[in-house]
């Protein structure tokens, strides 16, 4: 007799047909956690996603349907929050925006209680920005979902580094041996930290240029060169990344006047001419026009600042896709 047990049933294979070899960490907390293969996987995936939705009327993919992404922003942000929100929505995930203002945090709720609330609501991914360095790391111990660091204090901002690397790769090709100059407030910049870690992982040579007062202690342990002379560093560089002078994090006086900073470390037309013809000018935004960068350069021919914002959405889509797919298989 043919019983129900005997009827051939299609069963999912134990081994995936095409698994992705490089493994990513469960949470994206630091650009330093990414191996070269892992970082390249994210960038390649972003490239493919861009290709898949280029020129389409409906720029939406069904990939993360039914998943919940919480944007947990304890610090002000325009482009990062909107970028993450757009990325999650383009992948059809449900997005909940949570900002410290107007929430129970202003009533004194702790990060841990907030994390437990999110946990109880079943967030698949938590995108966290916090003014305290290491807050996303703490959060990752309290929630089951994947935590993505969207900037923590003066520590790291890994997705910004990924989108910068993506932009650089589009214009320069492979980053091996490319010389990238990062200029400005390195001391307070999480963008600089993440970029130094990621770009050196990808084979680029990074030169940090800043006034001595804005160079952090222990910078000699970073995989980067340090210079105080912007003109010398810019000569022959493949790309220059200007950092914002973070007035809100400056308690003391790190330089005498804005004008003096601008003379020494601002990017103007004369300095841009020192770059190679193919070199690009980047800025993570928001810009202090006239301080670290002149409007002429910011809107000039080699500037990719607007493109960086567009690439941010694609790169964050890649990060969310790679973190959130394959969960039932035991995560990544």
């Amino acid at each position, binding site marked *: 007799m043919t019983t129900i047990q005997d*009827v*051939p049933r*299609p069963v999912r294979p134990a081994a995936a047909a095409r698994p*992705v070899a490089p493994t990513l960490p469960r949470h994206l907390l630091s650009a330093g956690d990414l191996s070269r293969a892992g970082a390249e996987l994210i960038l390649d995936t972003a490239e493919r996603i861009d290709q898949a939705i280029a020129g389409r009327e409906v720029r*939406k993919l*069904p990939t993360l349907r039914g998943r919940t992404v919480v944007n947990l922003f304890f610090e002000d942000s325009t482009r990062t929050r909107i970028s993450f929100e757009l990325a999650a929505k383009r992948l059809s995930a449900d997005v909940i925006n949570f900002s410290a203002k107007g929430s129970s945090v202003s009533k004194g709720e702790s990060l841990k209680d907030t994390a437990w609330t999110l946990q109880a609501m079943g967030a698949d991914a938590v995108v966290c920005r916090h003014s305290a360095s290491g807050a996303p790391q703490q959060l990752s111990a309290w929630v089951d979902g994947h935590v993505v660091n969207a900037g923590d204090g003066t520590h790291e901002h890994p997705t910004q580094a990924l989108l910068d690397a993506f932009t650089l790769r589009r214009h320069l090709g492979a980053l091996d041996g490319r010389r990238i100059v990062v200029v400005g407030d390195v001391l307070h910049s999480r963008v600089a930290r993440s970029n130094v870690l990621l770009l050196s992982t990808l084979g680029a040579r990074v030169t940090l240029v800043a006034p001595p007062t804005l160079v952090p202690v222990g910078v000699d342990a970073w995989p980067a060169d340090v210079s105080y002379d912007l003109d010398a560093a810019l000569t022959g560089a493949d790309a220059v990344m200007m950092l914002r002078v973070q007035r809100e994090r400056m308690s003391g006086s790190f330089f005498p006047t804005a004008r003096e900073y601008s003379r020494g470390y601002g990017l103007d037309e004369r300095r841009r001419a020192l770059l190679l013809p193919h070199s690009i000018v980047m800025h993570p935004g928001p810009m202090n026009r006239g301080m670290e960068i002149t409007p002429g350069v910011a809107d000039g021919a080699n500037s990719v600042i607007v493109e960086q914002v567009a690439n941010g959405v694609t790169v964050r889509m890649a990060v969310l896709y790679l973190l959130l*797919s394959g969960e039932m*298989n035991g995560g990544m």
Partner: protein
Amino acid sequence: MAVGTGSGWDRPGRLVALPVDHPLRTVQRGGKGGLLEVPARPAQASQSGAVPAVEATAGGVIPSSVRPISDPDAPQILTEILGAAQIGRVIDRIAHQILERNGELPVVLLGIPTRGVHLARRLGERLTAFTDRPTPVGSLDITLYRDDLRRRPPRALEETRIPAGGVDDAIVVLVDDVLYSGRTIRAALDALRDQGRPAVVQLAVLVDRGHRQLPIRADYVGKNIPTAFGDDVAVRLIEIDGTDSVELARAVPTRDTITGPTGERTP
């Protein structure tokens, strides 16, 4: 139709040797035990008798005593189904069928990565040669539209390249190497819908190995290969594998090859 070793197990109407004391056994004194058509039944039953059970297969007779118990490295019987010359002829035939069906109307070929893309390109070359007008060929990655993304480790995405004319109001022929569960094509139809609104969508595959899980059917089939769940159809193309061939790896039948884990889609 060649019924393989894996598929005959629980099917009615196959030949088995019955145990000596079986009620259906024909009385045949002094003989070795007659073969008789009986309804299907659990495989173990045939092993319980005193007479060694044998399995009638297309490839020969395998005594039940040597059947391996569920083993990932279970021995496989490899058979080449199509060689390089035959693949070339199959592609020529499908190209002619596409022309026959669509007449003078231009078609857009979209290959599903990875091997479907190369098949689409070859089909496009044949169509261009037969009609003297260029055939647009592109590729359509379906990874982001799969229904098993949560169950599997993340996959690397492949290239999506829609030909310049787009797919709106066009006759689109999707091209893939192996048609199996139909889930890939389901995903491809979803992906295609997001690219535009084709007038007609048709499907061309090099191999149809059966076992559909969705109501999907190919319009152009290179070769129908009846398979069991434990079998594996390997399509190799020069562009990727250095050789053109379609091989069928028949799993030596065990209970697991009928109900156990199998490949959903050949890599």
